[in-house]
């Protein structure tokens, strides 16, 4: 969409029209579950939940029960079609609506309702296929979190064409409130980095829990601290990679004196060498300063310094 619309009314109309289209699109099937309903996953789930109901895992008990055999916990409905680690999420009609809300500043998201209906209990071997349709769009509404829209969708799970479970899910997409400084509530951390267009990507990454290293889009050179030009190939095309988040202490100091604003002494600052081939400076925390040494394995940890600033720091890790 290239429409340039800026008034709240026009944004509302634009979003409503998009939502209308997506709701009219009906049900969109997603990828089938990677595995059929199975006992091992049920066992992991019940163990984690602390659910000792024997109809889920005790074959003998289950056989004599009303179910006549092992059944899956109904609340596992959604588990079977989760994309899992590294899996691809199937596109749904809701995606475009959520993206448009992000684009118009409704970047906050909080789930508000989850309603599951179980038409029958699932048994090992059932292979589920989800299908999603968008069913509701309401707003803008004033909420405790800020102005926002409620987006609702419904997922139906099918097993061999039979609708076995369904779920209505609702989220509030809200425009985060402008943060007002509240003196006395939380003090502003005094040691703030200057940020400009050349370094913004790094701090944006930090806010998302990513340690970003500048990468030249042309020659691939990694560089930290970053800068506008690639010193190797002169390219101004920049991208970044997300560091693995591990490193080793290359050098370090223990600051005792003089007092530093916003800090309690003693504290440790280290030059950390990353396996990606760059170095970065940060504090080593969560250990006694006497335990820090050159070569110490560390991993990144993000610490909120005040309402606006998060700093990447380093904590010990097993080598």
């Amino acid at each position: 969409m290239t429409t340039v619309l800026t008034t709240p009314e026009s944004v509302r109309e634009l979003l409503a029209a998009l939502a209308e289209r997506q709701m009219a699109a009906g049900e969109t099937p997603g990828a089938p579950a990677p595995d059929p309903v199975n006992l091992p996953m049920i066992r992991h789930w019940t163990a984690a939940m602390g659910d000792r109901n024997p109809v889920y895992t005790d074959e003998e008990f289950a056989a004599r029960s009303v179910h006549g055999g092992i059944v899956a916990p109904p609340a596992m409905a959604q588990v079977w079609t989760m994309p899992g680690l590294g899996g691809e999420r199937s596109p749904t009609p809701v995606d475009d609506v959520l993206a448009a809300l992000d684009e118009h500043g409704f970047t906050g998201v909080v789930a508000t309702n989850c309603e599951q209906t179980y038409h029958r209990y699932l048994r090992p071997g059932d292979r589920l296929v989800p299908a999603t349709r968008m069913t509701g769009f309401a707003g803008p509404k004033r909420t405790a979190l800020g102005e926002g829209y409620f987006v609702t969708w419904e997922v139906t799970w099918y097993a061999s064409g039979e609708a076995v479970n369904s779920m209505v899910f609702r989220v509030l997409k809200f425009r985060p409130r402008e943060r007002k400084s509240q003196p006395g509530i939380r003090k502003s951390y005094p040691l703030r980095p200057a940020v400009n267009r050349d370094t913004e990507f790094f701090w944006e990454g930090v806010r998302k829990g990513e340690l970003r290293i500048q990468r030249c889009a042309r020659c691939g050179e990694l560089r930290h601290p970053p800068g506008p030009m690639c010193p190797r190939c002169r390219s101004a095309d920049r991208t970044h990679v997300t560091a693995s988040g591990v490193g080793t202490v290359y050098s370090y100091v223990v600051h005792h004196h003089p007092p530093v604003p916003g800090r309690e002494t003693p504290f440790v600052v280290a030059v950390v060498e990353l396996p990606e081939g760059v170095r970065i400076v940060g504090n080593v925390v969560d250990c006694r300063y006497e335990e820090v040494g050159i070569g110490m394995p560390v991993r990144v940890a993000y610490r909120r310094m005040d309402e606006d600033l998060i700093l990447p720091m380093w904590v010990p890790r097993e080598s």
Partner: protein
Amino acid sequence: MTIASAIAGIGATEFSKRSGRSELQLAAEAVFRALDDAGLPPSEVDGLVTYSQDANQEIAVARETGIGELSFFSRIPYGGGAACATVQQAAMAIATRQASTVVCYRAFNERSGRRFGQPDATIGGEPSSQGLEMSWHVPYGLMTPAAWVAMFARRYMHTYGAGSEDFGRVAVAMRKHAATNPAAWFYKRPITLEEHQASRWIVEPLHLLDCCQESDGAVALVITSLDRARDLRHSPALIAAATQGAGAGQMMMTSYYRDDMTGLPEMSVVGRKLWEMSGMSPSDIQTAILYDHFTPFVLPQLEELGFCPRGEAKDFIADGGIELDGPLPVNPHGGQLGEAYIHGMNGIAEAVRQIRGTAVNQIKNARNVLVTAGTGVPTSALILTTP
């Protein structure tokens, strides 16, 4: 043909912890003394050079001292790295006839006024290139010169097996030299290695006694052509070489991202240039004034300049190499650790005294004296010689 130039006059205020005077007054007093030392009236001066960090504008110093018209004025950036570059700029101005007599000065109340060692939360706040550079460090509280240097020191210790005592021996030698220098703040106050080791931590691995003192004071130098200098009050200190240097991947005090963190590549840059310009080699130097705001950086300076192999400075120092009777007496006046911290300018004045043969701790046959400026930053250096 270039016009050879020389330092013809030196002047300084007393070195104190509380001057009780404005920085401009200190500057003017030092300029007057340097001109008197040279035997020149203020009206002869047509150029002024100072540090970017100096709070006294050239025109203000000219007004206070009656210098009058100026045809050349220049400022050198990068903190104490500017020291020898002020002389370099003056020599270039004279060589190119921009000026005939240039005064270099540095004046501050660094102890009673703004103290460089104190954290300044605003240094990382501006999106200038330096502010952005600082922003990779200051948010983590890495924001004092001692801390910046300590980071290098730790790596140097790790790589070369040096210990805190190796840094301590530098402090002990400087305080020993200062003990016999009446102008030094630490006159008659030497220290032992045990006292160094017992002094409190500032930023590990740096003890208090690894850090130079903080001083109020001013130093000024008069530079003119060698021909003119020959007719003045003292025998001239010929500027045999003067140069600036920044290393590849240089930052202000935080060049932690270069391949090696144990050296001072910028000092290697100026060293190579000094030897090339002067036609000398390390063995031609009778005494060196090495920048000593913190002890650890004296070691890589000795190595970068070629006075000893890499990693061996600790042995050179332990063997008495930098003491008054050693092969390379370093800072006979006591350096900034012992005499005063005037951002390196007092060291240039000492080099002139050594060339003249008038130093309190005079090194015999001091014909060639090498001087360095701030370490960890883009720096400068010079060699003074007897003409």
